């Protein structure tokens, strides 16, 4: 009923309850956005802090947020920019937001080496000139054709989250807790659970003085409650009991249950496949490319052909996945910009011996299998199926794989593969243990596949720390990681970070990039060509396509699927939650762009 209260004492009908990603937070009152251990995803960067430039994943474009416009380059080598702030913005205590605040933030970050972000910013910014209250000129240490990527959001969020000078100038920024935070977003943090199980945010009365208010109007929810309910099953129950409006990731099984339990539960798609396929990182298997046998392109290709992508897809997420053979994820804008245009090229693509490895029929085949399992509501025509399940992947051809491996000196003895030096071939696939279900399942499924093929493949699950330190140090054999990200067509910065050879450091040292340690002159050369071009340059996309082709030839990792996100919502109390039918923005509640959903989300009028 309308009088119903939430557990924190706010009216249920005007409180949006959001699933708190990342669990219970033990230091709930630490809200200093620059400190290393501050948890941003429990509402802080979604609602309280804002950045200069944001993205819209529906259009695939960046837009100015605190900034009034996109950065204006003042010279040809992109080392000097004019940045203007929106007029009329205020901090949540009513003080105006000016370039003095921005200058203060830059100085503070540069002068506080305890901030992890400090190091990065000091490589970028040389100095600034405050022109007036709303205009500032930034002089950079290096060429940054994509300054809006560097100091604004590309995916998830950005570290440059401005804080008010008038409060921080009196504090030691390295230890300042900043609770309750005074910031620029449309909500303020008004209450927290000392045990870190929930965080309550209240809409600012002066929401007009925020970028969200200026761009999209008044946010709908009076309150936003970020709530940690515990294990997945409890989150599901909360959803069934209408105690949770917005979910972060759940498993497909959980979605089945939620769908059965609450008729108002709604996934991205109304029907199959329900999930959203636009997560900006695709999943697959990486190799230790600098070590044998992975330094051999043919071995990597053989592994692709030894993999039955359909069985992997079924085991991972019941086939509810969009395949991707490219180095960038098949999110809708990228799918349209690269995957679909390159489909014909891939079909034609042949090895030197003329073998054509591409299987363009994946979408049709998997649809048939799923239909056989009783899944209903799938599109009929191939076009729509390709949109749904992807452009296709590499054939499952163990015979060809065997042939390729044998050509490289591998031998098959008693059904088990041996390396050219005669030792049994063992592959260890690193996998996340508890924090990334899809990659975890994918690792097991691939290992299963490869075992069938005759390779002794095992999965090693690891906690986040170990998982990532092995990745950065290059101390892995193979792994279920995701070095293929992007939300916008121009994902040069990420491709560069993942593949440029200049990042390579010896194994055992943490790599600043290119953790796979893939040393390719061809790929690095193409990246160098794109580097000086801004995103909107006409050569950018063709060059990126070049990159993808070369990537396919060299096959440095095995991207498999875009990530399916089951991030459902419960519409019992709300209208305007984003869905495939109402696609003003993707379902990225844990990104900083979440605040721009707010004006679209409105209490149910009859609620």
């Amino acid at each position: 009923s309308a009088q119903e209260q939430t557990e924190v004492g706010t009216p249920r009908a005007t409180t949006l309850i959001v699933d708190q990603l990342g669990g219970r937070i033990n230091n709930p009152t630490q809200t200093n956005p620059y400190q290393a251990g501050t948890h941003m995803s429990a509402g802080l960067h979604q609602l309280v802090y804002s950045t200069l430039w944001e993205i819209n994943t529906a259009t695939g474009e960046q837009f100015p947020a605190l900034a009034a416009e996109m950065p204006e380059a003042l010279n040809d080598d992109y080392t000097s920019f004019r940045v203007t702030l929106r007029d009329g913005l205020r901090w949540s205590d009513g003080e105006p937001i000016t370039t003095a605040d921005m200058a203060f933030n830059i100085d503070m970050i540069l002068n506080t080496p305890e901030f992890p972000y400090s190091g990065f910013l000091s490589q970028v910014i040389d100095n600034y000139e405050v022109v007036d209250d709303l205009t500032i000129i930034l002089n950079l240490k290096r060429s940054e054709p994509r300054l809006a990527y560097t100091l604004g959001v590309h995916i998830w969020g950005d570290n440059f989250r401005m804080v008010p000078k008038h409060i921080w100038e009196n504090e030691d920024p390295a230890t300042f807790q900043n609770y309750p935070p005074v910031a620029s977003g449309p909500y303020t943090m008004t209450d927290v659970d000392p045990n870190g199980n929930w965080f309550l945010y209240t809409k600012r009365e002066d929401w007009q003085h925020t970028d969200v208010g200026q761009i999209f109007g008044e946010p709908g929810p009076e309150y936003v409650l970020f709530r940690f309910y515990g294990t997945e099953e409890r989150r599901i129950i909360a959803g069934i009991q209408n105690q949770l409006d917005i979910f972060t990731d759940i498993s497909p099984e959980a979605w089945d249950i939620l769908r059965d339990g609450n008729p108002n539960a709604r996934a991205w798609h109304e029907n199959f496949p329900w999930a959203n396929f636009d997560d900006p990182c695709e999943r697959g298997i990486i190799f230790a490319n600098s070590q044998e046998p992975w330094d051999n392109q043919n071995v990597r290709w053989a592994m692709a052909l030894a993999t039955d992508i359909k069985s992997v897809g079924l085991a991972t997420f019941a086939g509810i996945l969009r395949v991707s053979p490219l180095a960038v994820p098949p999110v809708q804008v990228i799918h349209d910009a690269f995957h679909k245009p390159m489909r014909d090229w891939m079909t034609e693509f042949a090895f030197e011996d003329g073998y054509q490895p591409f299987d363009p029929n994946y979408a049709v085949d998997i649809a048939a299998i799923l239909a056989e399992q009783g899944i209903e509501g799938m599109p009929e025509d191939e076009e729509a199926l390709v949109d749904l399940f992807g452009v296709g992947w590499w054939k499952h051809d163990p015979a060809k794989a065997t042939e390729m491996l044998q050509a490289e000196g591998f031998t098959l003895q008693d059904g088990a593969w041996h390396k050219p030096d005669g030792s049994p071939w063992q592959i260890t696939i690193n996998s996340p243990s508890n924090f990334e279900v899809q990659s975890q399942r994918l690792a097991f499924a691939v290992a299963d596949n490869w075992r069938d093929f005759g390779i002794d493949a095992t999965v090693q699950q690891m906690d986040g720390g170990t998982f990532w330190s092995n990745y950065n140090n290059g101390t892995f054999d193979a792994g279920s990681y995701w070095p293929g990200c992007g939300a916008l067509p121009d994902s040069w910065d990420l491709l560069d970070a993942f593949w440029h050879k200049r990042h390579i450091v010896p194994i055992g040292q943490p790599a600043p990039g290119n953790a796979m340690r893939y040393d390719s002159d061809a790929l690095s050369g193409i990246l160098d060509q794109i580097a000086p071009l801004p995103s909107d340059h006409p050569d950018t996309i063709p060059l990126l396509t070049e990159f993808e082709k070369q990537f396919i030839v060299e096959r440095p990792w095995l991207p498999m699927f875009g990530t399916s996100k089951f991030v459902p919502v419960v519409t019992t109390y709300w209208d305007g939650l984003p869905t495939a039918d109402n696609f003003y923005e993707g379902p990225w509640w844990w990104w900083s762009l979440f605040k721009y959903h707010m004006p679209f989300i409105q209490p149910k009028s009859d609620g």
Partner: protein
Amino acid sequence: MGALNRRLKIGLAILAVFIILGGILPFFSPEDPRDWIRHPRNLPPSAEHLLGTTNLGQDTFWLLSYATQNSLFIGLFVAFFATLIGVFAGLAAGFIGGITDRVITLLADVFIVVPSLPILILMSSLLQGRASLLLISIVLILFNWPWPARQMRSIALSMRERQFVNTARFSGSGTFTILAEEIVPHIFSWAMANFVNTVLVAIATESGLAVIGLSSLEEATLGTTIYWALQHQALLGRRWWWIGSPVVAIILLFIGLFLISTGISSLSAERRGHGDA
């Protein structure tokens, strides 16, 4: 008399079922049940799949049989070595005395007082994925020998004062003969009961670790089976065959082992009480 043996009988009958399930059946398994998507998913029980299939397309029955095998292995392995080490350490402490006694007693006390789970969690977290069942077993042995050792020590102390040991000595028996003929028969049933109990503890701890995702998850054990079932929402999805079979198996196995352990103790008490031939 009847009541006491009934416990042992029921316990042994239950154990026999599990020995068949875990000790014999896996060798006749038509497949490696750990493989995924070998069968259609989430089938109900049928003649072909006695306990249905899992969400991962595994045959629940064969999975259970493998899990039982591994869990029993851990239990037996840990119990065997923990009891062995415990008995020897306890006997050494009790019979040799002095510094040996003090050191062994102190070590045993440490391992009894120090909560084992956090340390196991620490080790599994540092070794995640590499924490093989063997390693987990070894750590479990480390934490389970002190109980038999403590008991054994006090038994040894009282045994040392028992006259029949002296009778044997004066009948020319050497230390080894005394151990074998006088001491061991007295501790045997006790050691058996302890052994069974440790089987229980070991299986419980490993599966406890598994349930929170810190064991060797790729291996099928009763605990990891529960873990995967929970991960795949078998509970909310009411896939009772999947989540239920390992849970029921654990409960039954534990009750069986427990009945055996108390059965053995009361059997030996009974023997001592009125042992007319």
